[in-house]
């Protein structure tokens, strides 16, 4: 029987948005693993981390509270699952903050009442990788591999917000291993001791402070090349975009010759599970993941 979850896809996953290819691969992956994602009806933006300037505490909490309340109403009893690191973080932070502070909880409900909603705040808020690790398990994930990703060396770039401040149960903040295990389970080879695996790509500051952020991104890519990587894989939409799309700019500035594809863990899984390139979101790559394309076309 399918495992059902209340799904919070987030702004970047929408049609024509920057991580729409992430959603495509997640859907293919979930299809194979018999995971049913029930989208939270009429969900809204979580304001990510950069919403603080205009938002302030209560308006930001109200945003995520609306999503949780909608989930309680329409997908009762189901764990809320997000694929975007920032969505997961903001929603989980809201849940914690409101649990700890009755005054804020009361005010949040006062705001929610304007939209005809009420928050109980009882659901679990989870990231998709938690679902994979805890509810599916590595063994089951491995059982569905039809085309092992033989001969591809991959740097597992976990980044920040899937890892801190909450992280994944049983993993350390400084050296989480789960992404390497995902890579291995799909038949590829993880870069060992990838020292930039939890370094920051600049996040939203890639937009406002491009030079400072691109210096960080350069180090992340350089370390992947140093480890012999053919590609980089990440669980975060912001990490994916920042590390993929600025490579030309970095090359122009630093005289490097970067041209390394950056995909999601779900892209790997979808290809390994026998889905074609389109179903795996490979057409969403700006730097083509040639090795994955070859396997997907087989």
């Amino acid at each position, binding site marked *: 029987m399918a495992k059902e979850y209340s799904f919070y896809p987030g702004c970047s996953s929408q049609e024509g*948005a920057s991580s729409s290819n992430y959603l495509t691969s997640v859907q293919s992956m979930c299809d194979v693993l018999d995971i049913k994602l029930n989208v939270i009806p009429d969900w809204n933006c979580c304001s990510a981390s950069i919403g603080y300037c205009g938002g302030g505490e209560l308006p930001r909490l109200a945003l995520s509270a*609306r999503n949780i309340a909608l989930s309680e109403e329409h997908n009762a009893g189901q764990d809320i699952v997000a694929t975007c690191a920032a969505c997961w973080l903001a929603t989980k932070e809201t849940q914690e903050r409101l649990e700890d502070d009755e005054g804020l909880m009361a005010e949040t409900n006062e705001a929610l009442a304007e939209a005809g909603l009420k928050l109980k705040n009882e659901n679990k808020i989870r990231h998709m990788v938690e679902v994979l690790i805890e509810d599916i398990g590595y063994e089951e994930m491995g059982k569905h591999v039809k085309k092992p990703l033989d001969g591809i060396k991959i740097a597992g770039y976990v980044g920040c917000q899937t890892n801190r401040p909450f992280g994944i149960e049983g993993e350390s903040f400084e050296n989480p291993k789960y992404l390497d295990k995902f890579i291995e389970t799909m038949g590829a080879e993880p870069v060992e001791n990838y020292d930039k695996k939890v370094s920051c790509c600049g996040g939203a500051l890639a937009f406002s*402070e491009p030079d400072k952020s691109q210096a960080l991104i350069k180090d992340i890519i350089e370390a992947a090349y140093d480890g012999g990587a053919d590609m980089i894989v990440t669980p975060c939409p912001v990490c994916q975009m920042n590390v993929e799309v600025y490579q030309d700019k970095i090359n122009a500035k630093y005289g490097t010759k970067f041209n390394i594809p950056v995909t999601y863990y779900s892209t790997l899984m979808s290809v390994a599970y026998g889905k074609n390139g389109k179903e795996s979101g490979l057409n969403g790559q700006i730097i083509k993941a040639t090795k994955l394309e070859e396997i997907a076309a087989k």
Partner: protein
Amino acid sequence: MSDLNTSMVEKYRNNFLKEVEAHVEEGEWVKMCMQCGVCSGSCPLGPHWEHPPQELFMMIRAGKREEVLSSESMWMCTSCYNCIVRCPRELPITHIMHGLAHYATRLGIEPKGQPTRQFAQLFWDNLAKNGRVNELWLGVNLYFMNGLVEGIKVAMGMAGIGLGMLKAGRLSLKELVGGHTVKDKKGFKAMIKKAQELEAARVDK
């Protein structure tokens, strides 16, 4: 200087720590800082902070109100959460930095031209309009935030990336008019308005 800023100066006189504790998100944690500096050493943009977090915490206790609130420092926060997980005293440093930046903005004494300050406000205004982020307009507004001439220069520099995203189906011109939105826009906006009113009432108290 805004009226709110003037009234806060009068209300708290020389006790800036008390002001931060009362009005800055997670501000009650500031006094717990033991000045070890792990936060500053852990920050990916550490070298770019004029006053790194532990210094800001000491400045708050020393009553350096003007210097702290008008500083560009906390606008360097990338929200990587390194400082939070490494702080031996478990201060929610990321949130305090966001809180200081927001409070300075509320008082109208933040560094106005600071690029992250501008982008953060654009992001909020963008999502508050339709309940969901419109990435196309966010990009356009970002490139042109420093005026038309500068904007054309920036936009041309970014054209390659934009075209790449378009071709990959990760940017849509459909977003130019309308675009993604929540259905219950009325309820959404009423909720945000109420939350803003409640928060403002708390600061005025």
